[in-house]
């Protein structure tokens, strides 16, 4: 078991029912995906996989994901009517089911377009008790739990990139709790995810954004 289990993980969380994995976790995946997009969602193509695919209507998984895409918390009673709220806000939502190879049983794939036209594809799994793991961003493998502040850096796959990033962070005394790195193909694009103990100072994030070889930097604050 998780050694960091707290008493309020036992009595809690406060959430909209009926299921911590199929409702609360689904909402958190939606919220995380919306934050990764970095702007309000205009269209959402939502594909459920595994157990999500067979029970999403009865568990309100569809409502929970869409509520999450509007940044609603897991305890927000608007989750129940999120499909109506989304329609009122002009968000275009489409649901389907899909088979993804080797996916966790509770997986959803989100293809989002934001209000300024930005696109992102996010694959997330609800791994139990409301905990989540984002497993893919735009086809690149990641592991993001959103329990800590997470820095996500898409960069060219070339020598020295990781060292440069870490040197900059260490100069600001930012401690890295966990880190994972993957790439599309050698010399292609790589993605680096770092869970941080503290929020990095804004100038450091800005400096990362203009660093040679870095394509995109996203700072995902931990989910409240």
């Amino acid at each position, binding site marked *: 078991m998780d050694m960091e289990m707290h008493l*309020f993980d036992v009595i809690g969380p406060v*959430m909209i029912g009926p299921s911590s994995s199929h409702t609360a976790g689904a909402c958190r995946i939606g919220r995380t995906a919306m934050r990764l997009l970095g702007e309000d969602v205009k269209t959402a193509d939502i594909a459920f996989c595994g157990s999500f695919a*067979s029970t999403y209507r*009865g568990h309100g998984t569809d409502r929970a994901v869409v509520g999450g895409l509007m940044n609603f918390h897991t305890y927000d009673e608007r989750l129940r009517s999120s499909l109506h709220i989304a329609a009122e806000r002009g968000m275009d939502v489409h649901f389907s089911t899909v088979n993804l190879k080797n996916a966790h049983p509770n997986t959803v794939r989100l293809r989002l377009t934001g209000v300024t036209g930005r696109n992102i594809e996010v694959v997330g799994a609800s791994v139990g*008790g409301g905990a989540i793991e984002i497993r893919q961003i735009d086809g690149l493998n990641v592991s993001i739990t959103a329990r800590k502040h997470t820095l996500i850096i898409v960069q060219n796959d070339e020598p020295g990139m990781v060292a440069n990033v870490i040197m900059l962070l260490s100069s600001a005394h930012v401690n890295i709790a966990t880190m994972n790195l993957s790439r599309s193909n050698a010399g292609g694009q790589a993605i680096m995810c770092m869970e941080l103990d503290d929020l990095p100072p804004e100038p450091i994030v800005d400096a990362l954004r203009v660093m040679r070889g870095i394509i995109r930097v996203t700072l995902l604050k931990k989910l409240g």
Partner: protein
Amino acid sequence: MLNSIATLVAEAGEGTISALAQRQEALQDEISVEDVRKKMAGHLEVMRASVEEGMQPSLHSLSGLSGGQAPRLEEAVKEGRTFGGELIGMASARALAIAECNACMGRIVAAPTAGSCGILPAALLTAQEVYGCDDDHLIDALFTAAVVGQVIADRATVSGAEGGCQAECGSAAAMAAAALVELRGGTPDMAAQACSFALMNSMGLVCDPVGGLVEVPCVYRNVSGVTNAITAADMALAGIRCPIPTDEVIDAMRDVGQYLPACLRETGEGGVAATETGQAIARKLAQM
């Protein structure tokens, strides 16, 4: 690390398990005991609101399988038509109300899970109604329940997918039983005995949700869970000791969970989910 019930009892000493739990949580989160209590007080208010919502006769779930059953039981209790009298009757009605609130996308506090969320609050709120204890005592009791749940989660599991319903409703009943004992002035050892009885008496309970939804049998298991907690607390408060130590019962529950085939661990493929009617309901739900 408080990773056994025996440690909890030993460290509580002449004091209470709840005081120990609050000190530990404050230390771990680096906040004051007062703030820790405030957070729990907030959870208690949500629990009350869940009962109120679950008592609405018009409530119904997306599947149509649950909602509106709690007020019927409450009415029967109020009219003196139940075998269990007021305490068991109202605890059952409240457990049903909270579990149905959850099934109908209402707001609840997972305790320890959403599927078993009715047991602990139903036990405590009914004890408060019948015995008139104040909120401070209820908050203490919630901490006792929480730390018992933490030990169970640490040694075994509180997830139905991993350990069956015994891990969810069984754990919730064990947590509630220990909390009730403390609420009625029992010793930490009595709380441990109550925990043993509740967990022992739900040993082997499978997780068999019809159509994979948190409704049938989950909603009704919350009712049996709260009665299990009350009878376990009563035995312990009467001075009856469980022949098997609590930590060994918890470890046995873990082992039984591991023996359970996957079809009896939340997959909706065994138990009542696999009955002719359970399958028919599942097929209907799939076409919703």
